[in-house]
């Protein structure tokens, strides 16, 4: 008897390993992956899910919040297993378009919604004249500086590269090793941002006027040499290859770093972290004779094709409802304030500018920002490539040779 019972249990265990077959449901289910922008992202989206489902009983939302640390790993695994989400919030785009995985935005974004976006953001996801994503939010980078430290050192706010060195030297003279005058991040996390800050503000950049890769331009070499020079002269944090922007933001909050280039949500970060310092924000210093260029970062909402969906029209309709609901001016503006980012729709921007002047000025800066060339298929390689160039340059290698090699590697 015991034997039979045990055998039955073994068979039951084996059977339980088989995938359960789910009963068919008349509701349309949408799997949505949202990236985590702050500690409270989950709470906002949980409420969103409830509100949305109450208003749209025919759609079942399945929202998952994923941290940026795990996002690429997770999405890559899902895509490789043909299990991509319906809606994805991420920054990259070109790799999915190259594999024909994304739906064109005009197929699901209502005309009313399309007209709301700032044209620059609507166009930012265009590949071969087709728009493949909706801009979820934007942020803008500028120079943050600690007013008290600069005042005490008798230094002025730098507007040019020469002035950065001058101000940094004054701070170094006054505070010695206690304060790092200039924060710089050349880590695997976001070293491509440093490349942008310095090359764009020297008239260079990732691409030339035709949109072709121009990584080893004279301007870029000069810019990187300047940035690495700041490190070698002892004006920066001691470990730029390992100290991320978040480490710098913490050091800035603790008055350990006097100046750093960072995103517009630093005030939110500092107040959430309980930091209390006297700081201000200004444009990123440029080399003599060059115009200051701010850096914009734009994250996206993308819709994956799903050939296995039984009712394509119902799926597309549900997606349209999702976006109309999310980009509703009040709700969308609320999310932007909640996470400390800038809106990508004119209507939400107008709404926010009414109550808060700083929003209005950031939105103005945003119009003139440069963005990463993320719609080019080689972007992932370029991004990691420039980070390796920076880190090798920090170790003493020649910037010109490094950039020449990278350019040859990317452009062939």
């Amino acid at each position, binding site marked *: 008897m015991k034997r039979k019972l045990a*055998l039955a249990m*073994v068979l039951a265990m084996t059977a339980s390993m088989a995938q359960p077959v789910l009963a068919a449901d008349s509701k349309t289910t949408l799997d949505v992956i949202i990236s985590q922008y702050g500690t409270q992202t989950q709470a906002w989206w949980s409420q969103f899910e409830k509100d949305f489902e109450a208003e749209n009983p025919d759609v079942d939302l399945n929202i998952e919040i994923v941290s940026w640390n795990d996002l*690429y790993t997770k999405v890559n695994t899902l*895509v490789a297993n043909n299990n991509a989400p319906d809606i994805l919030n991420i920054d990259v785009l070109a790799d999915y378009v190259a594999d024909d995985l994304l739906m064109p935005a005009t197929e699901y974004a209502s005309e009313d919604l399309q007209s709301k976006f700032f044209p620059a953001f609507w166009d930012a996801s265009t590949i071969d004249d087709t728009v493949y994503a909706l801009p979820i939010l934007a942020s803008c980078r500028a120079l943050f500086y600690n007013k008290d430290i600069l005042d005490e050192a008798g230094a002025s706010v730098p507007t040019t590269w020469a002035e950065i060195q001058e101000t940094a030297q004054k701070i170094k003279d006054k505070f010695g090793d206690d304060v790092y005058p200039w924060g710089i991040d050349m880590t*695997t996390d976001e070293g491509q941002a440093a490349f942008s800050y310095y090359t764009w503000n020297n008239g260079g950049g990732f691409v030339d006027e035709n949109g072709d890769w121009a990584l080893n331009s004279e301007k870029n070499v000069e810019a990187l040499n300047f940035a690495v020079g700041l490190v070698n002269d002892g004006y920066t944090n001691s470990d730029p*290859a*390992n100290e991320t922007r978040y480490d710098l933001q913490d050091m800035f909050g603790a008055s350990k770093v006097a100046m750093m280039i960072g995103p517009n949500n630093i005030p939110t970060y500092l107040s959430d972290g309980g930091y209390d310092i006297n700081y201000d924000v200004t444009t990123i210093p440029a080399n003599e004779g060059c115009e200051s260029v701010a850096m914009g970062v734009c994250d996206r909402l993308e819709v994956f094709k799903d050939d296995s969906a039984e009712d394509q029209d119902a799926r597309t309709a549900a997606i349209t409802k999702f976006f109309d609901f999310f980009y509703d001016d009040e709700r969308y503006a609320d999310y932007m304030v909640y996470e400390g980012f800038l809106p990508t729709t004119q209507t939400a921007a107008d709404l926010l500018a009414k109550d808060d002047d700083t929003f209005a000025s950031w939105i103005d800066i945003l119009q003139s920002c440069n963005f990463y060339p993320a719609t080019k298929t080689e972007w992932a390689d370029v991004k990691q490539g420039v980070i390796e160039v920076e880190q*090798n340059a920090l170790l003493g290698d020649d910037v010109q040779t490094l950039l020449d090699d990278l350019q040859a590697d990317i452009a062939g």
Partner: protein
Amino acid sequence: MKKKKPFAAVEPYLWLLPSILLMTVFILFPIFEVFRTSMSEVSKAGLIKGFCGLDNFTKVLRGSTFKLVLHNTIVWTVAVVVISTVFGFILALVLNNKFRCRKAVRAIVVFPWATSLIIQAGVWKFIIDKDYGALNTLLMKIGLISSPVNWTPTPQAYFAWEIFVGIFVTVPFVTFCVLSGLQSIDNSYYEAATVDGANYWQKLFKITLPLVKSSLTVSTVLNIIYVFNSFPIIWTITKGDPASRTDTLVTYLYKLAFYKGKSGEAAAVSVIGFLILCLCASIYMVVSLRKEEE
């Protein structure tokens, strides 16, 4: 002769079925997938586009980074395994003696091994941090240094710290493997040796070492595999930076797959690592077991 019932013939296989299924799903299938991916052209988004032979292997082996990373991996594995085996062995000898609070000390030794590697690595990263680190704060408080010391001025220094953390978390495992071997040695061997006039070192090399050899073999083989494949320590402390100077094969392939979108090449690195490990572990097992038989 009694004829076997048909049920009796299949019964053992039925009992084995769950284990075989689990092994197929969780061990054999992933290994097969890695080999398949390593010989496939994989798009950046992660889709397999077709068979490409050994292209991924050629691309990986041609790159200059791979040599650096392989060199790092060998230094990392050899240093961590050898030094922790020596220290673990010594610690086991100490803990095998009878002294007060022996149980408490043995429990404390397990701590580094029982704590999550990410937490360990995170804590050590904090300890050696130049600006906020506990080590600098401590040394400054007791007056040994006047200003913070940069404990990680070069990539080599970072790598040395990572090796130190690797040793710190590996020693307990060796200690307990050896300790279990030591406890099984009958005391009469030592008594007989003492009567014959053997000194401490003779007893150590002629009695203790040969008798704990099988425990040492197990701990060394397992450690070679664990340490070679260890990801959390290096990833938490440096992410393999700057410019792959502290990368090992595992962190390098992770970057290839998830930062550069080159899953095919990442799988190729994984296969190379797998083969190296299989080779090293088999050689070590064969050599040490053969000696044991002799």
